[in-house]
């Protein structure tokens, strides 16, 4: 089959399968993205915030709770989508043989992988809405900018879902996901401007932080939330788009190499 013919809107059927499974226990699925930010905002925002008071943001000072709230939305996007296309997709591919069954239907491998990636981004989108509700309840979601956060979260979700799917394509077994988790996800979570401005990092570490997708996603979401988007927002959007395109290409190639034998 020619390369072009491997892509069609049929990926939506794979996405729909995941949505049906998600809806079955949606109340439980809603809990982690709701509870986690409540814990973090209480512990860090209120607890630690009483010591830190204010943080510099774009030449002004904002209170610590306002600073970390958008960072938590961005990191929820990362965790949700990356987890979905690593552990969850791997279970479907390897243990449940769901992809094998799909491959006996008119679906192509590319459509299955795209369906999984778009689903990962959808979970990120849902999480961003849920965390945003919590942030709004703490009175930290600025309008109208916050309304644009979910679509940006979807783009960020695509980026992390593609990266996760690439790891799923090359990982020998499910335990090996700990490697990208600890070398890629956790450092990003801590050092990409979620909890403190990266200006506080040594210069070299700042450069590394700026090269990560979470830094750019956090920059965009914080700008929308606090009303401080500058021209560098376009650069961050472009970064996420290019990152997604590159990671998607790598992921599709890795999965084809893994599954088509």
């Amino acid at each position, binding site marked *: 089959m020619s390369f072009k013919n491997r892509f069609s809107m*049929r990926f939506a059927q794979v996405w729909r*399968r995941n949505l049906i499974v998600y809806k*079955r226990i949606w109340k439980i699925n809603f809990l982690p993205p709701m509870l986690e930010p409540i814990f973090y905002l209480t512990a860090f925002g209120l607890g630690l915030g009483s010591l830190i008071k204010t943080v510099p943001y774009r030449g002004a000072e904002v209170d610590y709770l306002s600073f970390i709230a958008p960072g938590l939305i961005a990191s929820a996007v990362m965790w949700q989508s990356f987890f979905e296309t690593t552990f969850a997709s791997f279970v479907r591919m390897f243990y449940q043989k769901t992809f094998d069954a*799909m*491959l*006996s*239907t008119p679906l192509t491998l590319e459509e299955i992988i795209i369906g999984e990636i778009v689903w990962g981004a959808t979970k990120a989108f849902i999480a961003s809405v849920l965390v945003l509700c919590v942030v709004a309840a703490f009175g930290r979601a600025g309008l109208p900018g916050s309304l644009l956060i979910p679509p940006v979260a979807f783009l960020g979700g695509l980026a992390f879902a593609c990266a996760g799917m690439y790891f799923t394509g090359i990982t020998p077994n499910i335990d090996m996901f700990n490697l990208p988790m600890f070398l890629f996800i956790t450092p990003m979570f801590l050092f990409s401007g979620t909890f403190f401005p990266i200006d506080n990092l040594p210069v070299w570490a700042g450069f590394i932080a700026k090269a990560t997708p979470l830094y750019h996603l956090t920059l965009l979401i914080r700008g929308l939330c606090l009303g401080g988007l500058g021209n560098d927002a376009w650069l961050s959007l472009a970064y996420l788009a290019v990152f997604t395109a590159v990671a998607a290409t790598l992921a599709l190639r890795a999965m084809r190499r893994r599954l*088509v034998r």
Partner: protein
Amino acid sequence: MDAVIEAKELRKCFGAFTAVDGISFQVPAGSVFGLLGPNGAGKTTTIRTLYGFSPLTSGEVKVFGLPIATSHREIKARIGVCQQDNTLDPDLSVEQNLLVFAGYFRMDRKIAASRARELLSFFAMENKRAARVMELSGGMIRRLMLARALINSPELLILDEPTTGLDPQSRHQLWDKLTELKAAGLTILLTTHYMEEASRLCDSLVIVDHGKILVEGSPAELILEHAGRFALEIEGRDPETRRFAIESGLKYDILDQRVILYSDGDEASLEEARRAFCPATCLTRQASLEDVFLRLTGRELRE
């Protein structure tokens, strides 16, 4: 009759290992075709190339007259595949398994719903509609796999060891259903380890080993040609029996603990041996496809 599957010089290599080594066969429309062989003979690999799961190394395969290399989406829309592993979706209920699968074929939701009801009733699983796959017995899992493979009303059904691991009741029930589907005109390609299954269901079959076809024909033809009509098994390692076998002019197998004699004619030609070597204990039986299979592929263990 038109051939639904035409395989010419089908070859599939994995690195230096040749799993399927240039096999050719045709499956006529409306027939049941068996692909038999020991473990590792290349059956599943052959099947996976037929539905486009694995690309061919060389050779040509046409399904419904369409080349698999370029039109596998169109081909897969018209076939049903029942894989060897349980590939049911454990996150979904029994009925959802059918409906979601119908979605992969982009079937109309209403048509899919009525087709799912029809299939659940055909396989006597109506009361399991809402059950989770985890709660099903082995026999029900197989029936649901088969129901799912039929959701798109396929013209060709590919079954990879459909009854492996089932109890006799479930196996016979599945055979009944397959016979019913065959009578309705469905073309079926089947792999199996059960020779009884192949004898019952297949119009024609091939026995493959080491990626090559050893023989091809109908079960009755193959039994007559490669075993005979009747077989007599004599237990023990008695050298007299062995000498008799060699000198008798009958087809025979001398095994570690047994000698088997085959007769192309009637039971009488085995009677002499039976009276001489085991008047009380052994019985003359019909020669079977299992005799053919073991005679052709050998008796040593695989894997």
